[in-house]
């Protein structure tokens, strides 16, 4: 029910201010962007689609932040593994 799909905005409709074309994996669908009236929207933006409406504009920067957080963990983990393998306790 709360299913939301990230989609890339490829075109803002000329004929209707609230409509836009969104693409998900090469698949296109018209959605209503009326709930993002406060946002600046442009082709290339990503939005979260829910029951035919764009609910939110997706921030790539914030998205990267999570991945960086994970990267950091991974780095720490790798470092630790490296440390482990290079340490000589013999």
């Amino acid at each position, binding site marked *: 029910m709360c*299913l939301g*799909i990230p*989609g890339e905005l490829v075109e803002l409709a000329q004929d209707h201010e609230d409509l836009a074309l969104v*693409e*998900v*994996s*090469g*698949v*296109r*669908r*018209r959605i209503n962007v009326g709930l993002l009236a406060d946002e600046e929207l442009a082709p290339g933006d990503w939005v979260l*689609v829910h029951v035919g409406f764009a609910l939110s504009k997706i921030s790539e920067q914030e998205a990267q932040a999570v991945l960086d957080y994970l990267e950091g963990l991974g780095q720490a983990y790798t470092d630790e593994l490296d440390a482990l393998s290079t340490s000589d306790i013999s």
Partner: protein
Amino acid sequence: MSREQQVLDRIERQRRRRPVVREERITLAHGAGGQATHTLIEAVFLEAFRNPLLAPLDDGALLDLAGARTAFTTDSFVVSPLFFPGGDIGDLAVNGTVNDLAMCGARPVHLSAGFILEEGFPVADLRRITASMAAAARAAEVTIVTGDTKVVERGKADGCYVTTAGVGLVERPVTLSAAGARPGDAVIVSGPIGAHGAAIMLARDDFGIEAPITSDTAPLHGIVDALLEALPEHVRTLRDATRGGVATVLNEVARASEAAVVLHEDAIPVTPEVTGVCELLGLDPLYVACEGRFVAVVDGEHADKALSTIRSHPLGADAALIGTVAPSPAGLVLLRTAFGGTRVVDVLVGDPLPRIC
């Protein structure tokens, strides 16, 4: 054994009991190819018609006709819309029956065709359908030798329904059966899955979704012939993954063979477009129908040969080894997810995609 496992074991026992139709009326779920369809078939049709040749879980019946090893099958086609990217009800009706015969290990030979037409149906559309049936029959090297036509009043059909039946000859010493899978076997799918169901959904135009997806409808007799020629004794099961998709077919195999099927999510071929449609509509491609893809269970020792044989056929170029058969949990299909977990892949409940074939 944990209390959870005890509960789950009780449930599995329950699931193996003779199914009962609890509904008073037929719903679309009974036609979706999933659990409700199985229940209806077992509790109503098998119950009434019970005889040794009637094998519900296989694609057709194997007959001895005065010494001739023959396969016999039928399917009714009610797809909506009648015409869709990549095909129409006509080639679907031919390929569907050709494929069911091929899955029995038979060379498809002759087809019958029964038409139920709705008053008002354009004759031009009927010509289009018969032309594509004729082309599909030529491609599949079968002849349509007998037929029937009925017309029903407007509002008592949806343009055109086609029922084909087919006979084929089993010319190799194969023993194919949904019950034939054994631990150690490999599970192969002959190409990217779900294109037919996705194409139909889009053609219905209910969702305003556009994507370059065409139905995968195709006759599989040639590729099956190549496979059986290469490995006549090492192919256990062949199933075309139609209604209910790959997941449903493999559940049937797991149940009939009393073994587990373990799939690897990241090995299962799906095109980006089908993935996109499924995401937008909240569907799982494993349950979306194909009309030109089959699942083969083959002896694990000969998996590479099987895969390369299938891949060498144009219709199998993107075939993939997607899983294996394990001894337990018997009767279940498991999926090793790309995320690194494992989960059950159950039979389809409900009707995400009605009238796809």
